[in-house]
C-alpha cells in the first residue's frame, strides 16, 4: 500500500548529492554504533559536500566515517560532546583547521530535540559554573544557576536505522538508536540509511520510533 507521502528510496549517490557546500548536517550515532557510515563515506565522492558544519556526538575515528571527511578537509566546524577520541580532530583543532563547539551530551541531545520541537531555547543546570558556561546566559531557578541553551537545527540529517517500512516509519537496533530519533526531527531534509525495507503494516504501530512524517528519503544498504 505505497502512498505518495512515502519516503522515497534513493541511491547512496543521490543521497550524497543532497548535501550542498556549506551545509549543516546532523549525523546519528554514538561512536560508530548507529552511524550511517556508508552515507557519510559516500560524501567523499561528492566534492560539493564540503565546508560542512557537522553536528554529531563525535567526529568518527581516524580513517572511519566522519573521520575520513575530516581528514579530507571537508569539515569546517564540529558541534558535539566528545572529540578527544579522534586524534585527527584534536590536531585539526590545534592547527586552526577545525572550529569546535563542545556541549555536554545531554544538553546537545536536548538542543537537537528542541530544534525539532519548535522550542527556541531552554534552561538547564548542566555545565553552570564550569568552563562550558562561558559566553552563555545564566539564570537562577529556585536558587540554582541554569544556562540558556538555544536549539540546534540542520539542513540535512543522515541517520542509521535498522528497518523502515515503505512509508518511512523507522525502528532502530538496541543502543544504535541513540541520537538518530532526535536528529530525525531537527533537519529540513532527513535521509535514513537502513538495513531493510518492509511492507507497510509490518512494523507494530505501537513500536514505531520515528513516524514517517519525519523521513524524506531511505537508502538501503544490505
Amino acid at each position, binding site marked *: 500500500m505505497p*502512498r*505518495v507521502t512515502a519516503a522515497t528510496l534513493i541511491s547512496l549517490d543521490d543521497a550524497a548529492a543532497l548535501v550542498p557546500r556549506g551545509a549543516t548536517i546532523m549525523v546519528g550515532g554514538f561512536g560508530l554504533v548507529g552511524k550511517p557510515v556508508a552515507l557519510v563515506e559516500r560524501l567523499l565522492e561528492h566534492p560539493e559536500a564540503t565546508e560542512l558544519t557537522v553536528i554529531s556526538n563525535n567526529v568518527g575515528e581516524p580513517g572511519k566515517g566522519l573521520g575520513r571527511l575530516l581528514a579530507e578537509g571537508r569539515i569546517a566546524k564540529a558541534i558535539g560532546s566528545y572529540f578527544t577520541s579522534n586524534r585527527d580532530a584534536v590536531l585539526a583543532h590545534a592547527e586552526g583547521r577545525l572550529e569546535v563547539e563542545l556541549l555536554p551530551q545531554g544538553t546537545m541531545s536536548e538542543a537537537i530535540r528542541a530544534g*525539532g*520541537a519548535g*522550542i527556541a531555547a531552554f534552561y538547564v543546570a548542566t555545565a553552570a559554573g564550569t568552563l562550558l558556561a562561558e559566553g552563555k546566559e545564566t539564570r537562577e531557578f529556585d536558587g540554582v544557576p541554569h544556562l540558556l541553551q538555544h536549539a540546534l537545527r540542520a539542513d540535512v540529517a543522515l541517520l542509521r536505522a535498522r528497518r523502515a*517500512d515503505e512509508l518511512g*516509519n523507522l525502528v532502530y537496533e538496541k543502543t544504535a538508536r541513540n541520537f538518530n530519533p532526535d536528529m530525525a526531527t531537527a533537519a529540513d531534509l532527513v535521509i535514513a540509511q537502513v538495513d531493510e525495507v518492509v511492507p507497510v503494516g509490518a512494523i507494530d*504501530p505501537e513500536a514505531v520510533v520515528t*513516524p514517517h*512524517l519525519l523521513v524524506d528519503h531511505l537508502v538501503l544498504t544490505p
Partner: protein
Amino acid sequence: MSVQRDIARRVAGHLRDGEVVNLGIGIPTLVADSLGDREGVVLQTENGMLGVGPAPGEGEADPALVNAGKLPITALPGASYFSSSTSFAFIRGGHVTTSILGALQIDGRGRIANWALPGRPILGVGGAMDLLVGARRVIAATTHLTKDGEPKLVAECALPLTAERPADLVVTEAATFTVRDGGLVLTEVAPGFDRAWVAAHTAAPFREEEA
C-alpha cells in the same frame, strides 16, 4: 449539516498529495470523510497518532482510538502512536504540513479567533494555538455567517485571537479567500453564490483576485 459537509468537501479540494494534515474539531473533522481514497493525504491527530482512517462502522468503535474531538476513528496501515508531548513537538516543529481549523471570527488580516466564546469564562483552548503556530499552512474552515446571520469575516475580531499568525486560506460555503500581503484576497466564489452575495456578507475588507 449539508453546509458543513459542503465546506469540508471544498477544503479537501485544497489538499495536496504528500501533505500531513491535522483536522480541528467541528467542520474540519468532516474533511476526513471527504478525502475518500485520497491515499496521498495522511492525517495526524494531536492526541498522539499518525495515520487516521475513516470513522468505524456501527458498533465497531475501539474505545482506545479517538481523534482530538474524542470521536471514534480507525487506524490505517502504517499508522503510529506517540505521546502528547511528542505529538505537539511534531506540530510545533513544522512536521505537520497543514492544519485545518474552525473559526468563530476571522479578521481582515486572516487571523483566527476560535477558542474563547463570547461572554463565557475562558476555560478551554486545546491544541488550536499550538497548531496555528506550528503548522506550515493553516486553512480556516467555517460557515460564512454565524447562526445569527452575522458575518464571521470581520475587520477586527471582537473575540480574542487564537494567534497572531494568520490563516493561509479561508474556506466557507460561499467563497475562498487567500491571505496575501497581510490581507484577504477573494480567490473563488462557490457555485450558487456570487460576488455581490460575498461582498454583502463579508464585514472584513478584501481584495478581488486580479485577472
